[in-house]
């Protein structure tokens, strides 16, 4: 419920929901070293070693891991940085 006198703009919430829907998936490959992938996750995502290791193991065991969900611009930036480190990352919504 909105407070009296407040008019919600559906376009704003729609736009926010659209932007929030973007995710970054990192895919497994047989060449990148596990410790290197952990390092890249720490560097690019800013997560600690424990979280980075958890994500790396998800990539290794499941074949992929959704490492980020949020604004499109940020998702694109993260995917590009993963590529610059030699990891295969894709964006999707």
């Amino acid at each position: 419920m909105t407070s009296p006198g407040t008019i919600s703009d559906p376009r704003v919430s729609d736009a926010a929901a659209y932007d929030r829907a973007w995710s970054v998936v990192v895919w497994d490959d047989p060449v990148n070293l596990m410790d290197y992938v952990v390092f890249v996750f720490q560097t690019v995502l800013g997560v600690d070693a424990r979280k980075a290791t958890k994500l790396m193991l998800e990539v290794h065991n499941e074949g992929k891991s959704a490492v980020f969900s949020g604004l499109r611009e940020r998702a694109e930036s993260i995917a590009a940085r993963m590529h610059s480190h030699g990891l295969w990352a894709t964006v999707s919504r």
Partner: protein
Amino acid sequence: MFRRLDDGIVIEVTDQEAGFLSQIPSLLDSVGHEHGDPGYSVLHRPLCISDANVDEELRALVSQELESQRHTDRSVLERCLRERSVMTRDEAHGFLRSLNEARLVLAARAGAFEEGPAWENRIDEDPSLAVVAWLGYVQSELLSVLNGDAGTKP
């Protein structure tokens, strides 16, 4: 192989090892010169697989910066090997990325991506895969120093 100093990281390799590593820039420069080079494909993987338009848009957006960074990384590697100079942490990251890029290109050309993890069983048969494995060792050594696990100045 790498040692951490107060002001950065220094590379300590034999002349033979330096000789191998100094071939990385020319290896990477060769990527894409031949049609159908798997090394090119592995360095230019899709950024979006669910929407070709988004993929094209993204590639156009990031490709120039990506190539520029790759060239900078190669220059760092070349300089550090030539001068045996101290690398800053950022330069060490660039060195690491170039090592990884070289591993990916060699592995792709040797069919390792199609083969899966079993490629490691062919290291003794395929010299290029032996180089991939050795570069992985170098990479791990540098990672250890960057992570503070080893190579610390006493």
